[in-house]
């Protein structure tokens, strides 16, 4: 499902975009690339995974995004894989 087309998730996009503003430049840059690529075309599964990732502390998040640490959480793995390929 396209998130932008789904009115229930629409305001969520703006919030998710803002929550990608982080304390570390490394994360800002990765998420900037992510949004440049997906635009408003974010499916709900990815939005859910992103929301969970963004709740992490910055250093922990960077370790996961950079591949320095791995997670066995199946909901986060596909998104982390995408972020690492950007």
């Amino acid at each position, binding site marked *: 499902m396209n998130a932008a087309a789904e009115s229930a998730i629409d305001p969520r996009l703006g919030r998710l975009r803002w929550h990608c503003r982080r*304390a*570390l430049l*490394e994360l800002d*840059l990765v998420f*900037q690339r992510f949004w440049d690529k997906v635009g408003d075309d974010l499916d709900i599964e990815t939005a859910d995974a992103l929301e969970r990732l963004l709740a992490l502390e910055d250093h922990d998040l960077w370790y996961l995004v950079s591949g320095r640490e791995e997670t066995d959480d199946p909901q986060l793995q596909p998104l982390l894989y995408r972020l690492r390929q950007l």
Partner: protein
Amino acid sequence: MSYTVRKFDAVIVGAGGAGLRAAIQLSEAGLKTAVLSKVFPTRSHTVAAQGGVAASLGNSEEDHWHWHMYDTVKGSDWLGDQDAIEFMCRKANEVVVELEHYGMPFDRLDNGKIYQRPFGGHMSNFGEKPVRRSCAAADRTGHAMLHAMYQRNVKANTQFFVEWQALDLIRDEEGDVQGVTAMDMETGDVVAFHARATLFATGGAGRIFHSSTNAFINTGDGLGMAARAGIPLEDMEFWQFHPTGVAGAGVLITEGVRGEGGILRNSAGERFMERYAPNAKDLASRDVVSRAMVTEINEGRGCGHNKDYVLLDITHLDPGTIMKRLPGIREIGLQFAGVDCIKEPLPVVPTCHYQMGGIPTNYHGQVVVHDQVINGFYAAGECACASVHGANRLGTNSLLDLLVFGKSAGETAVADLQQGRAHKPLHTASIDKTLARLDRLNTQKGGANVHEARLAMQRTMQKHAGVFRFDNLLKEGVAEILKVSEDVARTEIKDKSQVFNTARVEALELDNLIEVATATMISAEARKESRGAHVRDDAHDTAETPNGRDDKNWLKHTLWYREGNRLEYKPVQMKPLSVETIELKKRAY
């Protein structure tokens, strides 16, 4: 457009280290305190500070605040105010111990005392030999600090307004500050926070440069608001550059890489630092390495298609050593340069790192203009200029700055409020100006694109006011940045929605960035000497002007006023509080 009014004793803008430290002071005094932040407090840029906080605890070897003071004055290239520097260095132990009591998990010695490590520029016995002065919590000092102080604030009932964008100071015709207007990002609603004390702790504005180690949130919001309210910005020509940011991204490559044997090379593969610093080579001080890199690039020996970076080579190091001693560097290279540093060198450029100037304050944290305190207005941390860093900051003094002056500004505000300062009738004309600014943005047609205007500003700053400065480039830079500011005054956003409209937030941030960029360019063009981080190629090293520093004409602070881009100067405070003046001499290590 309408707004509502909320009354507080104190409103603090910014919830990084300085804002949280100040808030503890106010809330624990029983004052109704609001803290506004664009992001959740523990996601403020203080998180990125890893090096530690300086304090002459003397836990590992003999140390003294007076030695720390000497190092700081020398590091500042004598532009720092010696009263403020003495105050900060004397207060260091107190604020570090307080932080420990708040629950900060400092690294420890076997005897249980706080572990201290050496850091560049910190010496014992007035510059004799390195001393262990930095207190850290692994590589997460800033992060741990924010958590400890946030928890303390929760306990003290500080009221947080998270994801709020501050818009403007409310300043009346007598010049007194009455609070701040702000926008709730979640709803787009505008609120006037009517306060008896207003304290800015909004951090730096490193995003004015194209290459910056700063996170995207560092947009100088406090400086922009102060400038629009007629308050000058002090010493904005002084920006610290880190030699090794990843070219095109800005991400910091720690000095530890060169410490482990990393070598800087130009397009011919030459280890060029051998020519600039035959002894220290790649381990020379930050400013020496940065200038050498820029010289190589300017003389056509840069690398890549545009010859605009140099290479940091660690391919000769054992991969096991890289992985063990330099964790994270490989990931940074892969992610931001597309380079595996085990096999290929990393592209690097000197990158903007820290803002020494800011809103002029005294060491009590009060904003001061023409020796007059601005009633109701305080500032602390990177957005303020006390001035303890002068022309160049010493590593680990930034976390100390935000603790000492966050506390000091908070204490002063408490004292002022307890003496009975009342809410003055709200100056609505000041708020109307802000609403008009928002209205202009919301209704602008055929205006400038925010992204393009920001990029133009960043490129202009990087080219014309970078790490190594030239008279003709600065002069051209003034004309260029004024041109960019005309575009910023007519930015247009397509998305007019109210809920988390990031396009609007970015346009408002650009309004602040351009004030800082203009202040920087104009102040830098005017200062005809080299001092600390402000280095001009036409300022020569002579007996009268050591390293190009001209104390006869330029031992003074710059004050830039937005109105008419006017400059004034004020003397450096050379008299400390209790000890003898640290006399001028050539800054050499």
